[in-house]
């Protein structure tokens, strides 16, 4: 596949580029973040933090550079993606800075700012260098191989908090599993785009369920085994759930067969049940979810989940206000896995709803790009990346709020965690590229400003 030639005359009607909208939204996002930063300082020390200008300038600069990259290299990209990412990242920095005030000896915000810068740098690199997403299709098998390596390496490193998901080198730790998400999404999208028909219309029918042939089923079973393997070997329930959810969604989108979902859910249930009963680390998470207050009754004090629920409850409708909560009581993971509890306590249900809406918008925009794209790989990749975001948010937010068992995972853009921030910036970069391709005027085609309906069975 090659990029289409751009020699055709400009079409009479074009989609507006909306770069101005993006810029003004970015200004708003930076201002909101700066305001939050100042509010934290005012609440905590009765003074605006001295480095508020530096913070605002830094964030503004990152946003501006990213915007320029989009303006010049992806002019038709969706104008909401970048502002949402900047706002979430800025808000995350505010929340981490706010928690740093409680732990002066252990600050995380400066590091997080460096990682954010690195994330934006990667974003720019991807936007500048990846001129057409279809290039990625060629690297499908390379991607899956790299993903496997990235996921297997941490097994040889010591576990942290019960999970073997870290690589430590020279005081620097990072979670390779985060990058594996993107690589797997690329592989799934490419593999399914190539094998859609085989998966959908082959094999024997057993009790109304059309089974695919073994040749196609093989890789799928392999992926399932991989997910469970990650779960067992690395005790990383969250990543395992994410891979599996991603795979089931993409399989459904590619084939349209609900049977796959049934099979997927069944396999997931079996896997989860077996591991949940056998593996003590996962088992305790499930127990804690079923009764978050068991440790209190046992006289051991509240568990992290109970502390998290207390924080959310304290927030109520409007929150305590930035800098006025006590979410630091959650303990060691307050800045990472439980960052949402600080948002819940200090911004209340109102603020939390806003945060969820930002994620929902981002996911919706990703899906929208998928709907508008014409090539199956692009469609699947957009759906996959958007689903990764949605699943991450659901798994970790549901976990810290007692909806599902708690799994260690970073809230995209908000949570402390360098690998996570960089990965999510790359995801946004890919979505920018995809939405640019989706909205850009198509050479040769009748350009009416309306996306031509695609026949359901168009292959």
């Amino acid at each position, binding site marked *: 596949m090659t990029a289409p030639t751009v020699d055709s005359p400009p079409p009479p009607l074009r989609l507006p580029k909306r770069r101005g909208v993006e810029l003004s939204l970015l200004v708003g996002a930076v201002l909101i973040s700066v305001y939050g930063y100042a509010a934290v300082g005012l609440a905590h020390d009765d003074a605006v933090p001295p480095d508020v200008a530096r913070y605002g300038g830094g964030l503004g600069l990152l946003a501006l550079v990213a915007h320029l990259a989009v303006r010049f290299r992806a002019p038709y990209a969706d104008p909401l993606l970048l502002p949402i990412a900047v706002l979430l990242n800025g808000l995350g920095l505010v929340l981490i800075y706010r928690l740093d005030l409680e732990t002066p000896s252990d600050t995380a915000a400066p590091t997080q700012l460096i990682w954010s810068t690195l994330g934006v740098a990667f974003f720019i690199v991807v936007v500048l260098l990846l001129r057409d997403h279809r290039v990625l299709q060629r690297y499908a098998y390379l991607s899956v191989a790299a993903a496997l390596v990235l996921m297997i390496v941490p097994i040889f490193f010591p576990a942290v908090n019960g999970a073997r998901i870290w690589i430590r080198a020279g005081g620097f730790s990072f979670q390779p599993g985060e990058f594996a998400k993107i690589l797997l999404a690329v592989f799934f999208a490419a593999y399914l785009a190539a094998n859609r028909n085989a998966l959908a219309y082959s094999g024997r029918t057993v009790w109304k369920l059309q089974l695919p042939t073994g040749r196609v089923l093989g890789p799928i079973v392999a992926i399932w085994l991989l997910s469970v393997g990650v779960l067992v070997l690395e005790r990383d329930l969250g990543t395992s759930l994410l891979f599996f959810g991603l795979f089931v*969604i993409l399989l*459904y*989108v*590619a084939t*349209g067969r609900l049977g796959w979902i049934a099979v997927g859910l069944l396999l997931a249930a079996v896997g989860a049940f077996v591991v949940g009963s056998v593996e003590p680390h996962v088992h305790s998470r499930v127990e804690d979810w079923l009764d978050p*207050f068991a440790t*209190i009754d046992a006289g051991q*004090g*509240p568990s992290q989940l*109970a502390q998290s*629920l*207390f924080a*959310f*409850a*304290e*927030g*109520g*409708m409007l929150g305590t206000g930035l800098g006025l909560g*006590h979410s630091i*009581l959650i303990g060691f993971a307050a800045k990472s896995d439980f960052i949402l509890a600080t948002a*819940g306590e200090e911004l*209340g*249900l109102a603020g*939390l*709803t806003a945060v*969820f809406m930002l*994620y*929902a918008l981002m*996911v*919706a925009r990703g*899906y929208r790009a*998928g*709907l508008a794209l014409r090539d*199956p790989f692009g*469609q699947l990749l957009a*759906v996959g990346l*958007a*689903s990764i975001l*949605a*699943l991450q*948010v*659901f798994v970790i*937010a*549901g976990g810290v*709020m*007692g*909806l599902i068992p708690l799994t260690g995972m970073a809230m995209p853009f908000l949570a402390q965690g360098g690998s996570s921030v960089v990965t999510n910036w790359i995801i946004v970069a890919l979505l920018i590229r995809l939405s640019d391709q989706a909205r850009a005027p198509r050479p040769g085609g009748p350009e009416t400003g309306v996306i031509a*309906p*695609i026949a*359901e069975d168009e292959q």
Partner: protein
Amino acid sequence: MIRYIRRAAAFCLLLLAALLVNAARVQVFEADELTGNSANRRNTIARYDQPRGNILVRTGGGDATATVTGSKDTGEQLAWERTYLHGPLYAPVTGYASQTYGTTLIENAEDGILSGTDSLLAPLPLWNDLTRGRQPGGNVVTTVRSAMQRAAYQGLAGRKGAVAALEPSTGKILALVSSPSYDPEQLSGTGSAVTDAWARLNASDSRPMLNRAIRQTYPPGSAFKIVTAAAALDAGVVDDPDEETDTPSPYVLPGTSTVLPNESSGCEKASLAEAIRVSCNTVMAHLGVEVGLHGMVEAAERFGFNDDGLRIPSGVAKSNFDTEMSDDQLAQSSIGQFDTTATPLQMAMVAAAVANDGEIAHPHLVDRTVKHDGDTVSQTSTRSYRRAMSPSAAVQLRRMMVDVVENGTGTNAAIDGVTVGGKTGTAQHGVDNTGAPYAWFISWAQSAGSATPEVAVAVVVEDAAADRADISGGGSAAPIARAVMEAALGQE
């Protein structure tokens, strides 16, 4: 594929919607339950986020007050810690307010006022509920008078014992001292210093954290004879206190061969007045048997014995007078032995009943509570607790008690120019009475210019030097009572 993408998008939207619903569940519908969870430290943090209101005592005879507590900001998570200006002196009144161990006594009973959560402090009804806020802590003004408290504490001088003093007409507790005492400030805050102090205080043989004035009962010994005398007068067993009784000396306990001796001479067929003056066991035991079990139980309960619901506002330990006994046990109980036990406060109420014409005003420790800016929140009014005896019996007992101080076992309590009535007592304790005996003195005082007695006192002190003689009550306890009464009457 478009259709499937839309469905997948709907699924992701459903996930986010589930998160929103769940957020509403946790943050709105279950919020109160979670906020109220005892393991949720936020309530504690908020509680110590502002200085605690103070506990005040009265200085001098007028309305002047002075605080005996304070607060200091430590900058820790539970920021404001309680300080005490005269910790050991007022510990039986204030109790402690500890980040680690909670609160006791007034710190506990008036915690809502002191910590600012009491709805009475709020500018509008339901204000605190709506704003989830707290007001600045209010102050508690006690009835205690600093001069009397100090006199009692110095009088005990570290010996094991307690003093309770009342204003008979109002029930105001003027002094409440327990010795040996402790400094509640050691328990303020968190950390190893606090837990070590707690462990040390609880392990100490002298039990400094025990509030002996209201939480410990002792056999009252001969001091209980006032109750027996009141019962005999009101039951008509004795019409004229100066008339001889038909009591042999020694007296053989009914139904047994046990002989009850007297510590003093001249008790054979002694009158009630004489028996009180020199503290005759035989006469009083005999009178108790003549009044009968039912009459004695009723009389004791009119004074407050067997009441486990007395609050001042902290709970007072139940003083005991058995309700089922044989006559020999009744005889012993009637002279404050056997199972009869009393708190020092209870015995102060006995003296106060005599001083207040037989009426016991409800004892209380909190005079009023005020907002931090001085507006009164609540004021404790005088109310009757019980009528212990008829006014005529009280008049006769006052005369007899004055006789004790002027000519009997209680001469050590006499104050020049003041009418003082008293009664001594000695109580054995420990296995086979091996413990050092407790010396009792209960008394009241009325200065020349006053229509009624202004103060009633009960003192109990462990006195290793005391022999079995009742004189010991007059020997070691009476001077303390005198010092407290002098402080009450302004004769310091």
